[in-house]
């Protein structure tokens, strides 16, 4: 009997901090976000319920165009990140010897921990008019005037790809590590071509890793601010920048809340759809 009571005390000691964390910092803030997206100041000085902020979004072409553009871009960068990093994940787990692999994996993780601000700044230096790329091309005589690389969609894409692709490599590598080489050997012995092996064995096997990598990359890109703001041009339409402006420049919090909620809605829907289509659970994401 006494033992049972102890169990209860321990249970409450464990659950109370977790409840405080989740209720105060996750659940309530999102409810408040939703509430304030439906609130406008009334003439009497109070708050009244209104669809005004959402109407503003749908009425102004620039807003929803940016919204669609950002979502499409995020999907594009996710696919690009997969194409660029899958061969590397395979190379590090299956092709080169383990001795070099652990060193290269470490090299892979350094930009991740250095942080986005620093690496985006690095790309700004490389792609600028007096940057490494342009100065090199001028030096070898290929061009006379610097190419407009920085402040374009090109530089923005590089920045987004660079900061997010490592979140794709790591989960793919962890699934590939458990892929038994003998499966590939057997297929090869039976006369399968490389392409067939890739399509029929390697891709299906690493699908859980690809899915969780894709979800993280998509979420990071659609919610990113630094790369579009620093590397993107004036014409780069980026929805997160609108949210930042509402909160930090024009102080229109209600509209910002509505935009934030729309961003949360689109990113959650796409992530949910990805999980459903691949039959994967949220638990696996990011592991």
């Amino acid at each position, binding site marked *: 009997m006494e*033992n049972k009571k102890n169990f209860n*005390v*321990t*249970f409450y000691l*464990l*659950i109370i*901090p*977790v*409840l405080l964390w*989740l209720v105060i*910092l996750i*659940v309530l*803030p999102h409810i*408040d*976000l939703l509430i*304030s997206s439906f609130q406008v100041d009334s003439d009497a000085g109070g708050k009244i319920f209104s669809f005004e902020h959402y109407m503003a979004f749908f009425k102004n072409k620039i807003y929803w165009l940016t919204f669609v553009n950002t979502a499409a871009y995020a999907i594009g960068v996710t696919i690009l990140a997969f194409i*660029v990093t899958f061969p*590397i994940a395979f190379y590090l787990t299956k092709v080169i010897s383990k001795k070099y692999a*652990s060193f290269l994996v*470490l*090299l*892979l993780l*350094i*930009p991740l*921990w*250095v*942080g*986005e*601000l*620093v690496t985006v700044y*690095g*790309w700004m*230096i*490389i792609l*600028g008019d*007096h*940057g490494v790329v342009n*100065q090199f091309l001028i030096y070898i005589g290929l061009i006379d005037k610097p190419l407009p690389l920085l402040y374009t969609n090109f530089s923005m894409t590089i920045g987004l790809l*660079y900061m997010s692709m490592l979140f794709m490599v790591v989960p793919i590598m962890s699934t590939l590590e458990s892929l038994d080489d003998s499966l*590939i*050997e057997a297929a*090869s012995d039976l006369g399968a071509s*490389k392409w067939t092996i890739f399509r029929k064995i390697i891709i299906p096997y690493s699908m859980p890793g690809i899915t969780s990598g894709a979800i*993280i990359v998509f*979420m990071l890109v659609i*919610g*990113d601010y630094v790369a579009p703001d*620093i590397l993107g041009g004036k014409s780069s339409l980026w929805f*997160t920048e609108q*949210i*930042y402006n509402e909160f*930090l420049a024009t102080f229109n919090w209600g509209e910002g809340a509505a935009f*934030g909620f729309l*961003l*949360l809605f689109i*990113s*959650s829907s796409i*992530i949910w759809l990805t999980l459903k289509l691949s039959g994967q659970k*949220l*638990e696996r994401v990011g592991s």
Partner: protein
Amino acid sequence: MIRSLPNSPVYKYTYRFYAICFFIFLVMPLIAISVLAFNNSDFVALPWRGFTLDWFFANTDQRTGFFADDGLIQSIFISIKTAFYVATLSTIVGTIAALLFEEEKFRFKGLLYFLALTPLVIPGVILGISILISSTMAGGYLQDHFGWDIEFLSPSFWLVVLGQFSFAATYVMRLVGARLKKFDRTLEEAALSLKATRLQSIIYVTIPFLRPAIIGAFVVAFLISFSNFNTTIFLIGSDPTLPVDLYSRIKFSSTPVLNAVSFLIVVFITVAALISLFLNRNKK
């Protein structure tokens, strides 16, 4: 295709060439930053004008090096302080959450676990604005109804700590939870049958087993906090953290001192990574 199978030279060298290109792409920004930290020029640009340590040590009217730049030193100090509190808080709560979800059975466990995982897929900007709105609402309510002016409910140091903690705890929970899955339950049962209470068995048996994961999670939470921008920017008061400070300088006034501080971060992370590689190798 793989180590044990023969490959045509064309395939092998093309693959190797791609990998080399990828790693050049990977290290290029870090190298560009590091090299230009030592360029004797007032602008963050080529051409190379000779080697200098000015951007670390100078303190003249024209040039302020990193160690003379009080603003930068101050923001690094704030970042370290923030990261320390965030890491401590999220390590404690994240570990508790891992114990709760791995070892206890209760109603709504699935729902609660789902909620604990959501920060993985919520963009940082959304966490930032919702915590800002929520704390402002709470602050306004307490002010209007009770006349209390609670400082940490408006953008400030502690609000940043809470904001970063809200998602850092999830990462800790995942890291500690992964180790807890490998835990041999019979050890706890043995402790219980020896008349230890449930709490005692957690403190004296489970936690020591989890220690490596807890230390690792603390480091991860520290680094997550140290480099966070997206959530922090909305919750910051008058004292910027390093990423926020770097952002405004990159936007409005970049000088090679930014390269100097970035170079120091790169060196610090690289050395830390090498140490961890070395330690892991020794363990095996």
